[in-house]
């Protein structure tokens, strides 16, 4: 069974969730990973998109299997830490209704060498898409809603 230590990360002695319900403060994430020994920092932001192929999207509502999502994020972070021990990593995924243009996920990685910071960010977003139990429902201008997914057949990437 999953034990409680896997549900959240501790930050300066306080339990912090990877899942948040408010606007993600990307600057704070970047600051948390930065220090004088890490010369390269990479921030990835996934934002709610309303492109020409997306139709009249107004917002996306994210929901999760919260406990498992926290646990999978913790696993991904632990795997990254094992593979890239010099890299500092922070991430947050937003739940609830996210308007077009706002971030649903932000990942910050900093490392002594820039290649590692890029690699960690890509690893984390790629793993998130295929492992973390989060779902999204699109709200459209015409009042319709529809479930969307990361699968190749879907319009999302």
């Amino acid at each position, binding site marked *: 069974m999953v034990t409680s230590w896997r549900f959240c990360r501790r930050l300066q002695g306080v339990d912090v969730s990877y899942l948040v319900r408010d606007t993600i403060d990307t600057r704070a994430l970047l600051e948390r990973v930065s220090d004088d020994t890490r010369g390269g920092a990479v921030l990835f932001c996934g934002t709610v998109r309303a492109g020409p192929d997306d139709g009249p999207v107004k917002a996306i509502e994210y929901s999760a299997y919260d406990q498992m999502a926290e646990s999978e994020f913790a696993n991904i972070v632990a795997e990254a830490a094992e593979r890239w021990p010099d890299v500092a990593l922070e991430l947050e*995924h937003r739940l609830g209704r996210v308007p077009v243009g706002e971030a649903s996920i932000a990942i910050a990685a900093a490392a002594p060498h820039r290649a590692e910071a890029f690699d960690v960010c890509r690893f984390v977003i790629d793993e998130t898409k295929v492992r*973390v*139990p989060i*779902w999204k429902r699109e709200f459209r201008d015409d009042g319709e809603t529809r*479930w969307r997914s990361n699968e190749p057949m879907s319009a999302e990437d």
Partner: protein
Amino acid sequence: MNTGITVHCLFFARYAEIVGRTDLELELSRGSTVADAVDRVRSDVAGGHDLPTTPLVARNQQHVKFDSVVEDGDELAFLPPLAGG
């Protein structure tokens, strides 16, 4: 002696809409696999036939394959196609 087991099934997002509920208790015979549990849900639960034949399933909050054996007290989560990120 009762040879049956009980697993707790969870349904999320679109799957919760399909079966009209977020969880249920499922009785299975000992030695059943995840595949057996999915088959039972699809055949016995109202709306269950509208679930895919091979949904993503997590056992005790870990992704599992369909041939995994389930045990008494397990939690089986039916996960629609993921959309995080």
